[in-house]
């Protein structure tokens, strides 16, 4: 569009507005009536002159397209205000040259002989292609090549084994690994050079049978000694054995066919009372103990307790109470009695002082009516 505007400016500068460049149709046509001295001569000469002008303008347009546009590079005007990318090309070139010169110097010195001559030759050879590229860029246009010329030179590619057939599928790979086969060489598979290169570029998957325990261990983790020692002995499968036994039992036993059988099962398990109901059901230890052991407890007092006095009185009451208790065991009753025995042993002094227990030294001097209530 810039070129179009440029063209319009040129036309406007040179001549008064004669023709308009119609944007849509892309043609130059004259809409307005313009007074031209050349056109006044005859009507017949109007059309060829118009054509000449049109041709001139076309040529101008082509030239403008071919030329580089210098609007942006001008210091004044709109170009200066436009944003420009930073210029980096020159610096790069400089860097390359420096490194090149250093390298050539080193090489020349290493080779020996004429250092400067070798340097210059090397640089020429290195920079020759880059110079050639620069020359190419300065050309106006690349030569326009027609499609026909291109196609005439091309050959038809006829390949039988294309892409997906020659590649090994997953199933085939698995089969190969399991059987222990190895991949055939490129020659055997009749791969073209392009296919070989493609294979090399692809990320290779390690295919052959992998032995996990083949290599040496890294030693990152600590192996517990139990695991390390027993290698041949297999671990005991306690849960498995238990479940196996359970399965066998279930296979043999049948579920109850009716409610009677179910109730029998419950009774055997202990969920149901046995009929006729025995209140002492389940009391195995207690049934072995005879009732006299519960009731007659005075003989436990005989070794230690005095035969008369408040202590005896108290202990007899304790025994009566315990004999009437059916809820505790004989052992617990004996514990009670023994505790009192220990307690009175501890408090012997107080008892002797008060006169509850007849002291050995004062046996003859006991006063019967001196007991305090």
């Amino acid at each position, binding site marked *: 569009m810039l070129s179009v505007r440029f063209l319009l400016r040129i036309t406007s500068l040179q001549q008064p507005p004669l023709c308009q460049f119609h944007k849509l149709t892309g043609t130059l046509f004259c809409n307005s009536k313009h007074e031209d001295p050349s056109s006044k001569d005859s009507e017949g000469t109007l059309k060829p002159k118009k054509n000449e002008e049109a041709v001139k303008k076309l040529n101008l347009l082509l030239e403008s397209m071919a030329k580089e546009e210098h609007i942006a590079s001008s210091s004044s005007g709109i170009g200066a205000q436009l944003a420009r990318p930073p210029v980096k090309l020159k610096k790069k070139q400089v860097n390359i040259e420096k490194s090149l010169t250093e390298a050539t110097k080193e090489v020349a010195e290493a080779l020996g002989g004429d250092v400067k001559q070798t340097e210059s030759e090397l640089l020429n050879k290195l920079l020759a292609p880059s110079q050639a590229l620069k020359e190419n860029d300065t050309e106006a246009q690349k030569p326009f090549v027609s499609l026909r010329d291109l196609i005439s030179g091309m050959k038809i590619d006829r390949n039988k084994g294309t892409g997906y057939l020659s590649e090994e599928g997953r199933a085939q790979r698995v089969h190969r690994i399991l059987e222990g086969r190895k991949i055939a060489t490129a020659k055997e598979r009749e791969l073209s050079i392009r296919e070989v290169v493609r294979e090399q570029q692809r990320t290779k998957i390690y295919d052959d049978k992998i032995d996990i325990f083949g290599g040496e261990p890294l030693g990152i983790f600590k192996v517990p000694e139990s695991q390390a020692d027993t290698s041949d002995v297999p671990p005991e499968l306690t849960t498995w054995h238990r479940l196996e036994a359970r399965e066998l039992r279930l296979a043999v036993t049948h579920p109850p066919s009716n409610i009677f059988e179910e109730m029998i099962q419950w009774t055997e398990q202990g969920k149901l009372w046995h009929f006729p109901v025995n209140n002492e059901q389940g009391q195995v230890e207690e049934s072995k103990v005879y009732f006299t052991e519960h009731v007659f407890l005075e003989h436990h007092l005989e070794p230690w307790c005095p035969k008369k006095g408040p202590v005896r009185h108290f202990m007899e009451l304790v025994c009566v109470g315990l004999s009437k208790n059916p809820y505790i065991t004989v052992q617990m009753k004996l514990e009670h009695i023994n505790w009192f025995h220990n307690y009175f042993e501890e408090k012997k002094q*107080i008892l002797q002082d008060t006169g509850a227990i007849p002291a050995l030294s004062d046996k003859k001097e006991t006063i019967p009516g001196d007991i305090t209530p």
Partner: protein
Amino acid sequence: MTMFGIVTTISQFVVKCPKLTGSQGQQIRNKYADWRMMKDVKRRKTVKEFGAERMRINSLRKNDILPQELREVADQEVAALPRDSNYIRVRHRCAITSRPRGVVFKWRLSRIVWRHLADYNKLAGVQRAIW
């Protein structure tokens, strides 16, 4: 007091109070219905430990046969025992809901829970009464 304020005070209280925190200020968690049940459990444990001794000493106290000096000594000994060793302090709460009242003693359940289980046939020998 705001919600945040309440939370901070509770957390501070928990951290300071030794009973509620285990080592390093961690909260103690148990599977009892509430803290009253937990306290009741503690009381029962002390009763188990000192209950028999307390009962025996009390039997020495509550009689007029033995000399008074002995009874006075027994009084002092009973006072030295922990207060929670007294059986009378134990409250027979519901085992599931920790309800202090309306507990069916034989099953240790509150009447509501008892009724629920009985209706679903979970209590042996329990049937709806009809006569």
